[in-house]
């Protein structure tokens, strides 16, 4: 009896311990894949060279163009998702009757459940042609269209996390503000949003992290041309897209080209790891305590 209890507890512990093994595995895979790479390519070149052409005859290994592509699509996505998502969160909290809120929230959540490959298809075949109709010079592959689509995909993430943050601000603060003759808008921006600011910032950081790691939308609609640019109208390549591009090709295992995906992967991992932990830290440190 006692023994079987112990065995079961051990098995359960093992399952939990596997999660640590996964983290260790990720770090080990990224390091062991990229260390040989950094023996051949100096970290200085990797971080400073302005071109990324590992698959060409003339090989250059500067990660900056991929970082720029990632930054650009992410920035566009956040520029779309933050104002819209936050506005929706405020609207649902301060203005919307509760029945509307109950209907709208799940509808918006659908946006988050659609597979990203579907968004990629829509960005390439509908949004890009639509944008081209009034933005002359917009290339068939560009950062703008997948950036916008990614932003819309992320709206529910920002709106529901921010909404949670705002609705956890005590009702009494809202009443105090109304009691002095504030409009709903003043209550929202002068009282509720500042009081919920840490939660809102966390939602934005997580959204950024999500956009940085997003793959299929940009792989389909942003193009596969590493380019050190902030021009949203031309084709670019993100870190994630590059990994997909190499995976689809016939790069021999163990070659330098093969190892580039681990070097790119480690950069991606560092970005998202830093963002995620920043959000945990903010959440823990600045959690407003109300009784």
């Amino acid at each position, binding site marked *: 009896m006692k023994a079987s209890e112990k065995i079961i507890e051990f098995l359960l512990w093992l399952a939990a311990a596997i999660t640590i093994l996964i983290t260790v595995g990720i770090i080990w895979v990224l390091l062991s894949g990229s260390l040989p790479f950094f023996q051949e390519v100096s970290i200085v070149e990797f971080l400073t060279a302005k071109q990324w052409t590992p698959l060409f005859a003339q090989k250059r290994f500067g990660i900056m163009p991929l970082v720029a592509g990632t930054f650009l699509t992410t920035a566009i996505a956040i520029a779309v998702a933050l104002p819209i998502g936050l506005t929706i969160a405020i609207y649902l909290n301060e203005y919307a*009757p*509760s*029945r509307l809120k109950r209907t709208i929230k799940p509808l918006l959540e659908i946006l988050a459940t659609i597979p990203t490959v579907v968004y990629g298809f829509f960005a390439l075949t509908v949004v890009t042609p639509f944008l081209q109709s009034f933005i002359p010079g917009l290339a068939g592959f560009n950062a703008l269209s997948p950036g916008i689509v990614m932003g819309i995909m992320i709206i529910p993430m920002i709106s529901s996390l921010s909404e949670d943050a705002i609705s956890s601000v*005590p009702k*009494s*603060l809202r*009443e*105090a*503000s*109304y*009691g*002095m*003759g*504030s*409009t709903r808008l*003043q209550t929202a921006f*002068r*009282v509720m949003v*500042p*009081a919920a600011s840490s939660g809102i910032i966390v939602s934005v950081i997580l959204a950024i992290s999500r956009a940085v790691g997003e793959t299929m939308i940009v792989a389909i609609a942003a193009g596969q041309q590493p380019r050190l640019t902030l021009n949203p109208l031309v084709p670019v390549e993100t870190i994630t897209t590059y990994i997909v591009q190499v995976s689809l090709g016939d790069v021999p295992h163990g070659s330098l080209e093969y190892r580039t995906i681990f070097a790119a992967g480690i950069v991606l991992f560092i970005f998202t790891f830093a963002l995620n932990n920043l959000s945990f830290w903010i959440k823990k440190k600045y959690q*407003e305590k109300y009784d």
Partner: protein
Amino acid sequence: MSKKPIKVEAKDVNAYYGDFHAIKGINIAMEENTVTAFIGPSGCGKSTFLRIFNRMNDYIDGFKTEGEILLDGQNIYAKNVQVDELRKKVGMVFQKPNPFPKSIYENVVYGLKIQGVSNKAALTEAAERALKQAALWNEVKDNLNKSALALSGGQQQRLCIARALAISPSVLLMDEPASALDPISTAKIEELIHELKEQYTIVIVTHNMQQAARVSDTTAFFYMGELVEHAKTKTMFTNPKDSRTQDYITGRFG
């Protein structure tokens, strides 16, 4: 005591939360510069009724008010009345101290700032005046930029009173303002209410009968959404007309 003019008056007021009839045909008049206490058992509608005077219930889904509330003779539920203007005239202090998570100064000037007052000298002056009225000035004058959340509960509540006074309302609604405070802070708030009566018409909801007896000029007893009795406080506590009032103030229920 000479007869004072009527400041606030409710005429045939009914209110509903959806299908629930919360306030049943209430008529009451409150004179200028007096303190009226609303008493009654929990759930009797006294807080709901109080919130009708500054239309605080407007944002509650399914809440409906019928009848008239006259403030200086004007119906506050008339179509052309703007809620924000109304609430500048009818201030409110809540059950639990609810300072904003900002500095003491920012809390007091909040109401003026949202009205668009940006003159620094005017704001500072108003803050000082309000804090003095709320008997808090001496305790905080050196720390105006300190977070309001660092104050004690009693200080926070006086800050909330100062915040309400800063926009110079003429009526002050207080919803059990001392129920979350210790006896000393409660005594301070009660003292304050006495002083504020000189300038404001005060309505206070309380579940503490001694408090009602100490601070109010008239007392209204509510039961199951009805106004059972409204009379001079002294009369009410010594010689209630209704048997339900009698039962309540002698502690037989509630």
